[in-house]
């Protein structure tokens, strides 16, 4: 690990200002950042510890929704009585991710910002446009079984590894951030994560120095809320494919895919196909997919996982 100086942030704006220092990074749970620092994939020279800033509450909003502090831990969020009752898809997605130990540390904002698990991003001996802009993509033509089938580019075929973000997309959450001047900004989750394009190293639409303060959920949507994750082990593994779904009694609803793209994959137009079943919905969701020989199984897996979800929603 490279050396770094360390400070405890005294206020959100001071933290955002310190982020302007050369090669500075925020640290909260640290479960992803420290892993990457040990491998020298991340090499910050200055860490700003934001854990003391509060932002650890879950509060009702005047609109009837929930404001989740950026520092609320994944365990606390999954176990919150209101989340369990009204936003079950979010609880289920969180509980499907990582391990008990990691969920106790990992934060809401950190989960949104976690980096890809593409094996070539982790292998510092191999070119990776995400790790070093312009160096090339070793995954294309390499081992691609776990990688993206849609929304990818000639520069990057990595996936976003988050389960939580897939549920947040289904719930249409909003990410709130603050900058060094104290200016706040709300970003709909749909616009928060970027597709790779020519700049896969830029993963979100946060501006440099902006600090996430909370994530807000709109008022409860009702319906059957399901998160189904398909992975190589029964527990503690990243998704090959996952489906977050909110299905109303009349069969209408929302579906979002995880494990297939650089961001949670939702195509709102495809949701009108839901009453027609999994095959039609999957076809509409995956229109334009560019799978590889090694990961085209994900297209079939999406349809089958969706079928299981729709069947569970009826039951």
């Amino acid at each position, binding site marked *: *690990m*490279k*050396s*770094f*100086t*360390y*400070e*405890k*942030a*005294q206020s959100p704006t*001071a933290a955002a*200002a*310190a982020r*302007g*220092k*050369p*090669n500075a990074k925020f*640290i909260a749970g*640290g*479960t992803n950042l*420290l*892993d990457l620092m*040990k491998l020298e994939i991340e*090499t910050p*020279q*200055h*860490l700003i*510890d934001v*854990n003391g800033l509060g932002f650890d509450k879950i509060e009702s909003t005047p609109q009837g929704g929930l404001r989740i502090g950026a520092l609320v831990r994944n*365990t606390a969020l*999954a*176990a919150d*009585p209101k989340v*369990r*009752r009204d936003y*079950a898809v979010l*609880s*289920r997605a969180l*509980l*499907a991710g*990582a*391990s*008990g*130990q*990691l969920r*106790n*540390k990992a934060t809401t904002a950190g989960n949104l910002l976690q980096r890809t698990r593409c094996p070539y991003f982790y292998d510092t001996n191999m070119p990776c446009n995400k790790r070093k802009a312009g160096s090339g993509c070793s995954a294309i033509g390499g081992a691609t079984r776990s990688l993206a089938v849609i929304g990818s580019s000639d520069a990057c075929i990595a996936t976003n590894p988050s389960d939580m973000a897939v549920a947040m997309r289904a719930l249409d959450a909003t990410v709130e951030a603050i900058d060094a001047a104290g200016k706040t900004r709300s970003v709909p989750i749909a616009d928060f994560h970027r597709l790779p394009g020519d700049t896969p190293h830029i993963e979100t639409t946060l501006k440099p120095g902006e600090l996430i303060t909370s994530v807000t959920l709109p008022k409860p949507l009702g319906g059957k809320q399901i998160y189904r994750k398909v992975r190589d082990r*029964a*527990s*503690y593994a990243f998704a090959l494919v996952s489906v977050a779904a909110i299905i109303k009694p009349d069969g209408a609803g929302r579906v979002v895919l995880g494990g297939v793209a650089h961001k949670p994959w939702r195509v709102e137009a495809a949701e009108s196909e839901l009453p027609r079943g999994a095959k039609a919905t999957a076809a509409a969701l995956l229109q334009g997919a560019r799978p590889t020989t090694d990961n085209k199984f994900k297209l079939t897996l999406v349809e089958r996982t969706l079928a299981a979800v729709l069947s569970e929603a009826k039951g």
Partner: protein
Amino acid sequence: MGTAATIALGVDPSSSGAQTSPPPVAAVANGVGIGPVLANVSFSVNGSRRALELDTRTTLLDALREHLHLTGTKKGCDHGQCGACTVIVDGQRINSCLTLAVMHEGSKVTTIEGLGTPDALHPLQAAFIRHDGYQCGYCTAGQICSAVAMLDEIKAGVPSHVSDDLTAQPSLREPELRERMSGNICRCGAYSNIVEAITEFAGRPA
């Protein structure tokens, strides 16, 4: 805001809340890297207050093992994948390899040495012996710290991936214990005996 040079030397006036002291080795402010940076931190370990001056890079795991010589906590993968380093911080189990010691000012840390001793075993340690819950023993301290805090999570009503009803009190059934312990790997494969030991301990009168 300081200049690059003042930041690299750790004397940036804007970081008044920082606990870092100037690095002992001349820093290189050319953007390539900086020398080691020391910082002070104090936290409680198994009931005793411990104050340390550490390289900022020191994980809680290395602080416990290399600086406080509490070698019961084990380093397995050092990347949060195996759970051998699990300790209990402020009542919650965490991977001590994936957190910096300097982030734990004022924390209360419990390691395996704080749960039991050879002369006064924790009842879960005794249950592991009775049920042969290990072969090589390298993962055992992490398994036991993890299980003790995991049972508190069940008591607190934290649901799991395998809980049928998110809003019901979770059970102590085997699938629940296995799911909740999935962050602790045992390469010897003693899982069935580990589950038996935890089940026995969980079922005993408080």
